[in-house]
């Protein structure tokens, strides 16, 4: 009690503050509730102390009071009082306790402590599957979606009962906001206030007395468009929430509502349209999707021509490349590195080439469910026709989509998982690190780390390169800090004070690193840009783990035998 009061009134953690635009401070309510609890404690203690003192004075059996407890101390203070006063104290304490107790019971649903009761249920009913999204409507299969009149959340009443329960269950602790990268760079989003504003809305529009006045649109009323588009779905808020409040599903549901109303920023409309007509957000020609595999820059290790999977190729592994690695000049290097690694590991693999379309991971997370479904159905069909047993990708967003959003496709792994397994099995060895003076820090991509819990594999691979110096950033693993978001987020023009990537680059510098290693093409884009914006070119660089692995793999000569394919790569 005392600790809580001191924290509220003396230390005042910054995250407890409520900015004026989000409503009024919650401290008066917190202090009031603490006061009620204090009264309960004192009254209860006085009741016990007066009872015990009275029994002592009347030579009756005396209740044992724990030493140094509040009743024990009060008993010492009132020991000399006359019997009548003790009686009065006893009955008074009893009445005060009863009245306070029942008042508190009635008041609780309106105060900030209601979460203690509701969270029992919201935690019990929490969604535990990571990396997944709720369907447009629970219980409605994809093929019946055309009959659903309205998509997503447009009014408060469109939220699911579980999400409404979440609003009441938030303890208002602010840990989500402290960890939210959008909040950190001054975007108009704080996960905590997504909840608090909805809770305030519920109390205002469904009053205890008087009529409910509901069905107001949320966007433009309590939420702004920019607020909802600001989220990168990195999952830091959900990871941190002690009460398992869901945020990504709510944000995506709100976006589904905006998409349904045609309320989409112009900057996102072009890439969405291009995804619809060309299967990639850049509007590039389908036939050029596999061209990266042909372009081997001078001086690099030769790659055998990457097979195009047509069902007759005999390959058992599909390398799913996804849009950015297929078309972006810089990211194509990740594609080539991945292909060379797979080749070196003796995998019989191929790519889909022109028939591959965007995985649709961000399309879905930006709320365009029908377009996502079209992309998913197309890819599912061509993947099945390719006749492979497994899928490998170097893009965590594609990995998450294929793993969680797709059904009926072969099991998928990120290339980092494949390499880590080969390292553990002793099939792969690395040459000593090329540049011994550099210090490497691994940046966890959100969709590899938090959403899929792949934390150790990339670190194991890095640590198996002899002589490589690796440091950890303070924010790493489940507390990794989003680089700025992938997929369609690259097209969105947020209102922000600085880039997320800038903060991330500074964190790496603080950790003493001068190379950031990541395992995601989008992290690469954002961090590379941030290094330039921060003017840290030459002092900090970024590379993909596949590039580092590709450079350090011990390769046997140039000839490759069947025996080698089955056994090792250079080991």
């Amino acid at each position, binding site marked *: 009690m005392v600790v809580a009061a001191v924290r509220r009134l003396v230390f005042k953690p910054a995250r407890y503050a409520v900015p004026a635009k989000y409503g009024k401070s919650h401290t008066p309510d917190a202090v009031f509730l603490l006061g009620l609890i204090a009264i309960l404690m004192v009254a209860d203690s006085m009741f016990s102390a007066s009872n015990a003192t009275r029994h002592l004075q009347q030579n009756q059996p005396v209740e044992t009071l724990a030493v140094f407890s509040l009743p024990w101390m009060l008993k010492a203070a009132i020991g000399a009082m006359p019997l009548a006063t003790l009686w009065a104290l006893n009955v008074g304490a009893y009445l005060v306790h009863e009245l306070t107790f029942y008042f508190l019971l009635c008041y609780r649903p309106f105060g900030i402590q209601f979460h203690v009761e509701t969270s029992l249920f919201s935690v019990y009913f929490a969604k535990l599957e990571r990396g997944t999204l709720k369907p447009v409507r629970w219980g409605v299969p994809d093929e019946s979606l*055309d009959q659903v009149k309205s998509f997503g959340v447009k009014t408060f009443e469109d939220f699911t009962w579980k999400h409404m329960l979440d609003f009441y269950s938030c303890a208002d602790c602010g840990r989500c906001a402290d960890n939210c990268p959008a909040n950190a760079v001054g975007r108009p989003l704080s996960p905590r206030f997504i909840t608090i504003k909805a809770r305030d809305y519920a109390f205002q529009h469904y009053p205890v007395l008087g009529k409910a006045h509901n069905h107001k649109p949320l966007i433009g009323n309590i939420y702004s468009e920019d607020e909802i588009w600001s989220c990168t779905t990195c999952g830091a808020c959900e990871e941190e929430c002690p009460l398992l409040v869901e945020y990504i599903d709510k944000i995506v549901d709100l976006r589904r509502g905006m998409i349904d109303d*045609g309320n989409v920023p112009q900057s996102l409309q072009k890439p969405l349209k291009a995804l619809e007509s060309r299967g990639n957000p850049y509007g590039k020609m389908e036939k050029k999707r596999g061209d990266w595999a042909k372009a081997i820059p001078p001086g690099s290790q030769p790659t055998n021509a990457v097979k195009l999977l047509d069902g007759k190729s005999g390959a058992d592994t599909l390398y799913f490349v996804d849009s950015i690695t297929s078309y972006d000049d810089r990211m194509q290097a990740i594609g080539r590195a991945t292909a060379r690694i797979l080749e070196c590991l003796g995998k019989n693999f191929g790519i889909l080439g022109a028939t591959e379309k965007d995985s649709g991971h961000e399309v879905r997370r930006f709320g365009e469910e029908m377009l996502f479904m079209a992309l998913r159905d197309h890819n599912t069909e061509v993947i099945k026709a390719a006749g492979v047993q497994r899928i490998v990708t170097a893009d965590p967003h594609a990995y998450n989509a294929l793993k969680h959003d797709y059904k009926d496709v072969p099991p998928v792994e990120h290339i980092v998982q494949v390499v880590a397994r080969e390292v553990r099995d002793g099939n792969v060895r690395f040459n000593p690190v090329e540049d011994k003076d550099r210090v490497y820090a691994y940046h966890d991509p959100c969709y590899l780390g938090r959403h899929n819990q792949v934390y150790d594999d990339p670190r194991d691979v890095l640590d198996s390169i002899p002589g490589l110096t690796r440091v950890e950033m303070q924010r790493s693993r489940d507390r990794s800090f989003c680089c700025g978001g992938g997929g369609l987020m690259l097209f969105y023009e947020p209102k922000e004070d600085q880039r997320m990537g800038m903060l991330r680059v500074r964190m790496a510098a603080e950790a003493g690193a001068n190379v950031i290693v990541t395992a995601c093409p989008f992290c690469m884009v954002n961090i590379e840009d941030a290094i330039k914006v921060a003017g840290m070119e030459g002092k900090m660089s970024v590379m993909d783990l596949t590039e580092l692995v590709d450079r350090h793999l011990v390769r046997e000569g140039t000839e490759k035998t069947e025996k080698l394919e089955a056994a090792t790569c250079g080991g």
Partner: protein
Amino acid sequence: MEILVCARRVPDTSENEISLNAAGNDIERDELVYSVNEADNYAVEEALQIRDRVGGNVTVATIGGEDDEEILRRELAMGANQAVLISDDAFSGSDGKGVATILKDFVRKGRYDLILTGVQADDGAAQVGGMLAAMLDYPFASLVNSIALEDGKLKVSREIEGGNREINEIDLPCVLSIQTGINEPRYVGMRGIRQVASAPIPTLGASDLGVDQGAVGEAAARVKRVDYFVPALSKGAEMLDGSREENADKVLELVAAKGGLK
């Protein structure tokens, strides 16, 4: 208010790699993806916003073939009340005047208070709007970037070279050519298009509209394309290779020297 928007389907410049065909008289049209002409889409959005303010109907019309129905569906999904496909073999090869003639006859079949076109088609010459107005004897304003309705008249703002604006008062009915940026067109997703998949789109031909066939089509065209080419890249780009600060100063200086800063 009854509003007509004339729209066209064009190859989407942001999603195609435009190259010449073997004959050198047109672009290679295999593998092109099309969309509604950008300025026309702004015109439809503006029409929808006016309708939502004052009531009435929005009709979207296009001249073309079956393939062009695709953009009409998109505009229906956006919220247009009806769409009409104007299609006839006799229309093919029409020049700007021919197109304006067809639209004129279509307009005379109905009753429209306001006719909007995009300021120009991506592959067009920005001539149909003006010609259509002249043929109808309606007042015309081009490059319109805002519209306000006051006492049965319109106050339209036009973009003037250099970023200035002028406000014009214009009587109804009239023809306006709409500049991009006048509004923020709403998004049309796959779901919206699916919902209007079975909406009827009437097709009207030359005889339905009473078009004088001697005035349209290739034979009547008095403007003919004789060549089409991609200009050679010219030199003249100046590469700045100083430090970031030096480059920033140099850019500032260059922009100011060209009158870009005031």
